């Protein structure tokens, strides 16, 4: 069974470092793109960036370039999204997804809620 299991709820302060994870199983991790997207409170869905674990190619949506770092560890079939210095505006629900059976992202994690507040 294919699964994308994301790390749990995070409550952080502005300026904190944070790395959230997306642990995958049930498929060949290096072969498929992983995406990260966010939903800020009361707002719509936004793509943040994409990583191909097989060749380590990473593509960022321009508005997120330099704001976050996306990575993947093939040895443990896990993708990551990290911030070096969180802002209150990073408060959101973050989802990872994989493009497994269609030309788009068809399989999703359960989401990770990140709250940044002083």
């Amino acid at each position, binding site marked *: 069974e294919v699964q994308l299991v994301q790390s749990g709820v995070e409550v952080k302060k502005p300026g904190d470092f944070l790395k959230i994870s997306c642990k995958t199983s049930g498929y060949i991790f290096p072969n498929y793109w992983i995406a990260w997207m966010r939903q800020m409170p009361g707002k*719509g*869905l936004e*793509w943040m960036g994409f990583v191909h674990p097989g060749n380590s190619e990473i593509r960022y949506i321009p508005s997120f370039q330099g704001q976050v770092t996306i990575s993947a560890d093939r040895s443990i079939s896990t993708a990551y999204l990290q911030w070096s210095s969180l802002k209150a505006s990073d408060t959101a629900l973050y989802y990872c997804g994989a493009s497994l059976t*269609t*030309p788009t992202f*068809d399989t999703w994690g359960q989401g990770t809620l990140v709250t940044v507040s002083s």
Partner: protein
Amino acid sequence: QSALTQPASVSGSPGQSITISCSGTASDVGAYNYVSWYQHHPGKAPQLIIYSVDHRPSGVSTRFSGSKSVNTASLTISGLQADDEADYYCTSHTTSGTHVFGTGTKVTVL
């Protein structure tokens, strides 16, 4: 890259059909046949209901259908049901090698 334009809300009575539009440009919707639609209940993982303009993933109801004309894609829900009440988002591949979402449409079943 600007978000694709969707109506903020669409409503219909049970059994009716509704259509949600998704307006883009020649750099996204019009560039490829890679428009997809997600159904999203807030706080839950989004569900892919249409990909490649008009293809349904396995298990998705035939009441959902998609189409595209030039730079505008559309999602039609026929035989509207109470559990269709959700947010719907279109998304498209772009010529810059990434993806872009639509602004989202809240569907209300009256």
